[in-house]
């Protein structure tokens, strides 16, 4: 009960947030109650004229509301009441008549920002740690402490909408520009300067002219009925495009703001609480919170004993400048690590540099980077056609063509050039690492480091531990992968590893569905309707049919008949259709448009009528993945269900609102899945649906992958 500390300096009261035993401050029921009491105390002292709210945590003001409390809310009424109670405290601040100043020294999110918004003034430090945002929609809820009401009023409707609907954070400088903060002060004198500001305001020696003059187009957009209608309809379109209707929070937030902007504050606040209450109890929100925790957990998960210290990587060698190699080079240089990129000739290097530049130019356009940063980072990629310069790389990532002989050859060459301490990481998507590693001297330094395409966008890497990989090599690879912003899962060295092995069964099943006469557009629509970012057939075209077929074949030869490749895949491949890269695969691709490719009809005679219900088709595609994932757990390819879930979400875009493949399986129930699989197995006479022992065990003994459901 001592998160807050109240200090009084003459006419100025300072409330210091300093949550005990924690690196951050969060707002929970106790803290809010404490805050309420503190404010009452201050209001009881007429000599106090100003109130500063400050944080004692380095780089953090208030990180938001306590997610655990939100997670445990089970009734909409409770949720609404929590929001109303919080609002009452913040309203007390905003109605206090005091000069109130939020002193933002760092991360200021969610409820933290809402508290700051309830103050009359906000000041922030110059430091890069300052981040302001209302990320509630990312957890499937909306701001509940008046954020939808105050932010658009203070920062402007356009900016406010943007921040609330996207959940993105903005920097202190941007906040100053839009009037969200009134002053930026140097870190070291933040509090002194804030006190001086408050005194100046009290003595009327400082005038706080707020933002710059509003631009004409913003006036037209925000302050005219027509402009506002346009703004809201455009925002709605954007939200729908982004969320595809699966994430109701953004739409709800938009709805609340549309109904309340410019209207009575109290009524608006109530509408906000209502909406918050409704959302807080949805499965989507509960699932997104689970994914949030999962993500936080996997950021720090040690994987390797803590006493094994990773080597610091000063330079990264990359072999192969194809799509993956080029993407990796761009990513590595984005994080300011010099890379040496080798290919056998300049053609590949050209396209790799072009791709990298394209990505950097995009970051420039989106104002993620500035021109000077792009110039610097782009220059960190050093292209070459020789091994020159690999001698002092700390890690080499091999991304050459997916062919065991070639990979072995380069590992042999490499291991003669680099010192024994250099980690050799293969970006193979399906070949066993041990087979590649054995071509190297000191095979214990070889690991798998499997990126997903497109490298800059997919947050996951699989780190593959071969039976000989050393802990040191793994620790170094994990630390490196995290340094370049990736979520790491460590998996066992089996063909296809974890993610491709699971995902391939989904793509393959789509092939069988097509062979049974289903329309490919329908197959894709069903998968997207489930929330997959791409239907399986689109995905095959995107990956490339040649690549997909190759991987599928490797898996078939490793896992036998249950992984039999759908014959259509081979037929399409033999026809020389490569997918999106050659503009023709299962679909004909014209720019962004696509239509089914007539050339694929008649390649295999339909083995069925195509009268498969949406539900059945979806179950076949999803449950076959569940079955394969269960096998992976059984074989200890993945250590636990969380690894599968984070991997599928971060590596394949499996819908986060379903909290992951195995969480979804638990929500369906292992019993139901086994039952359906058995029906498919018998009905189609297909071995691939046979529920694995682990899945049956789950049904019989545990009730769910995550234990009793």
């Amino acid at each position, binding site marked *: 009960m001592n998160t807050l500390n109240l200090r009084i300096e003459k006419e100025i009261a300072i409330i210091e947030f300093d949550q005990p035993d924690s690196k951050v401050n969060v707002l929970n029921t106790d803290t809010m109650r404490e805050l309420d009491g503190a404010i009452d105390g201050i209001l009881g002292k007429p000599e106090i004229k100003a109130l500063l709210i400050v944080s004692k945590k380095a780089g953090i003001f208030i990180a938001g509301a306590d997610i655990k409390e939100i997670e445990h809310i089970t009734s909409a009424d409770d949720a609404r009441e929590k929001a109303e109670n919080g609002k009452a405290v913040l309203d007390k601040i905003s109605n206090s008549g005091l000069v109130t100043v939020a002193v933002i020294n760092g991360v200021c999110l969610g409820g933290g920002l809402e508290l700051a918004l309830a103050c009359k003034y906000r000041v922030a430090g110059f430091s890069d740690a300052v981040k302001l945002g209302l990320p509630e929609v990312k957890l499937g809820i909306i701001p509940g402490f008046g954020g939808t009401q105050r932010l658009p009023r203070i920062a402007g409707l356009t900016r406010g909408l943007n921040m609330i609907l996207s959940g993105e954070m903005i920097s202190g400088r941007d906040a100053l520009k839009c009037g969200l903060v009134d002053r930026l002060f140097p870190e070291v004198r933040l509090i002194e300067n804030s006190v001086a500001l408050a005194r100046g305001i009290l003595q009327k020696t400082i005038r706080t002219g707020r933002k710059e003059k509003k631009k004409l187009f913003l006036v037209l957009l925000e302050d005219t009925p027509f402009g506002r209608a346009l703004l809201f309809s455009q925002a709605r379109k954007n939200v729908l495009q982004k969320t595809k209707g699966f994430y109701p929070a953004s739409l709800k937030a938009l709805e609340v703001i549309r109904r309340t902007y410019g209207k009575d504050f109290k009524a608006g606040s109530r509408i906000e609480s209502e909406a918050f209450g409704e959302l807080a109890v949805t499965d989507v929100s509960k699932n997104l919170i689970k994914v949030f925790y999962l993500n936080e957990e996997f950021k720090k998960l040690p994987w390797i004993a803590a006493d094994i210290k990773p080597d610091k990587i000063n330079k990264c060698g990359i072999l192969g400048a194809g799509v993956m190699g080029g993407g990796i080079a761009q990513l590595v240089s984005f994080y300011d690590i010099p890379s040496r990129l080798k290919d056998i000739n*300049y053609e590949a290097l050209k396209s790799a540099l*072009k791709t990298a*530049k394209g990505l950097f130019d995009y970051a420039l356009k989106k104002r993620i980077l500035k021109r000077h940063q792009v110039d610097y980072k782009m*220059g*960190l990629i050093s292209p070459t056609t020789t091994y020159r*310069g690999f*001698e002092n790389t700390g890690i080499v990532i091999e991304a050459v063509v997916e062919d065991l002989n070639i990979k072995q050859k380069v590992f042999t060459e490499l291991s003669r050039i680099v010192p024994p301490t250099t980690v050799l990481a293969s970006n193979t998507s399906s070949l066993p690492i041990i087979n590649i590693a054995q071509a190297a001297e000191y095979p214990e330094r070889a690991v798998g480091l499997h990126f997903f395409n497109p490298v800059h966008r997919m947050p996951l890497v699989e780190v593959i531990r071969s039976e000989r990989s050393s802990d040191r090599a793994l620790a170094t690879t994990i630390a490196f992968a995290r340094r370049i912003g990736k979520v790491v899962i460590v998996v066992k060295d089996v063909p296809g590893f974890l993610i491709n092995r699971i995902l391939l069964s989904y793509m393959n099943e789509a092939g069988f569905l097509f062979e049974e006469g289903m329309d490919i557009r329908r197959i894709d629509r069903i998968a997207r309707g489930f929330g997959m970012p791409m239907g399986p057939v689109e995905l095959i075209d995107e990956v490339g049919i040649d690549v997909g077929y190759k991987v599928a074949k490797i898996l078939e030869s490793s896992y036998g008949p249950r992984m039999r490749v759908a014959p259509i895949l081979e037929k399409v491949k033999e026809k020389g259709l490569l997918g999106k890269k050659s503009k023709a695969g299962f679909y004909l691709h014209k720019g962004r448009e696509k239509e089914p490719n007539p050339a694929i009809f008649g390649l295999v005679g339909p083995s069925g009528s195509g009268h498969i219900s949406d539900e059945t088709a979806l179950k076949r595609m999803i449950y076959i993945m569940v079955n394969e994932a269960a096998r992976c757990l059984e074989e200890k390819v993945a250590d636990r269900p969380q690894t599968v879930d984070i991997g599928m979400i971060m590596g394949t875009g499996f819908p986060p609102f379903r909290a992951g493949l195995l969480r979804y399986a638990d929500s369906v129930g292992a019993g139901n899945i086994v039952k359906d699989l058995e029906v498919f197995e018998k009905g189609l006479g297909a071995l691939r649906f046979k529920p694995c022992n682990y899945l049956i065990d789950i049904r019989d003994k545990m009730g769910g992958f995550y234990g009793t459901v």
Partner: protein
Amino acid sequence: MGRIAIVEGVRTPFVKAWTLFEDIPAQRLGAICVRELLEMTHLDPDLADEVIFGAVAQPVEASNVARVISLYAGIPKDKRAYTVSRNCASGFESITSALEKIRCGLDEIVVSGGTESMSNIPLIFGKDITKIFTRLNRAKDLAEKIKLFSQMRPHHFKPVAGIALGLTDPVCGLNMGQTAEVLAKEFGITREEQDGFSLMSHKRAISGRMKLREEIVPVMTGRDYNIVVEDDNGPRENQTIEALSRLKPYFERHTGTVTVGNSCQVTDGACAVLVMDEEKAKAMGYEPLGYIRAYSYIGLEPHKMGLGPVYAIPGVLKKAGLKLKDMDLVEINEAFAAQVLACIKALDSKKFAEENFNTSEPVGRIDIEKLNVNGGAIALGHPVGVSGSRLVLTLLKEMKRRNARFGLASLCVGGGQGGAVILER
């Protein structure tokens, strides 16, 4: 302490200005070389105490270009860097400064070199309009602004080429080409001799192309990096004496003999070399390309700047305790054919020795077969701040190929100086 070693070196292709490299700033050209040098030698960047780079036209957006190069190349931020200019000898100066720093015990390992993007030397506004602009910025009210605007005249907006200013001597008032005309007249060097020498430079550069590749790092450029530049683009495969003789004199329309064909080209490029003490190099397991035996700079009359080598060479030979005939290979930078030919004549002239060096003994004869054997600046181009480094690199690589003992590199310097370096293996 041993001799000062040039461990390794690399340069970009030399590319005619306003062609393939026109969108690459000097700092990037320099960084490409330094980065490649670090890769070639796999030197831990943390061991590079200092980057010293020559540059004549400092990029306006990257003053102290050496520092920018150092950071671009991935050398840690706590390392030092500074830029030197001795005009055309800046590339020499970067190396000899490194020698001095190392000898004084201030540095152990230095990355030296030169960079120049003559494509990016800006056009500038004249002084009058610059003043008006400056005052406009400071103007307090509209009336003052209007008054200043009213002072502007159309001729104010004719820009001045920075490069033309840079190539003109502010003391004697001649541009570099005109100083070459002075020498052509004084030494009676004919147009035919000059064109013949130029043709030789092109032919040697063309036949030396594969050898030159050994000192070049290919540069990928173009909007989509779709161009790979692997060779110098100055040398002309089909250069003929007829084509050369058809060119009009550029600096003196009627009586002149100096043309763009028998002058060096205006060029973009960069070069970097790794410099350290011999013992240090050996302790680190390097096999240096060669060592600096002696170096010398000297001043002379600005309008005869082209004779710089004639004055610098006797000095450096004396310091080295060697004779011109001991030199297995010689590089004299080809600012102008007339200027190189004048140097050869003067070095071999008894009269010149008597008048200038108080001795009847001429410095010596330079065997044309040992001079600029892979072509010179007339074919390859002369990125002013770089050429000194390039001469050292090209010479050392050729000395290695021939297993030569001594090599001499010298150049004339705008403003009236000469520089010379003797290298040994």
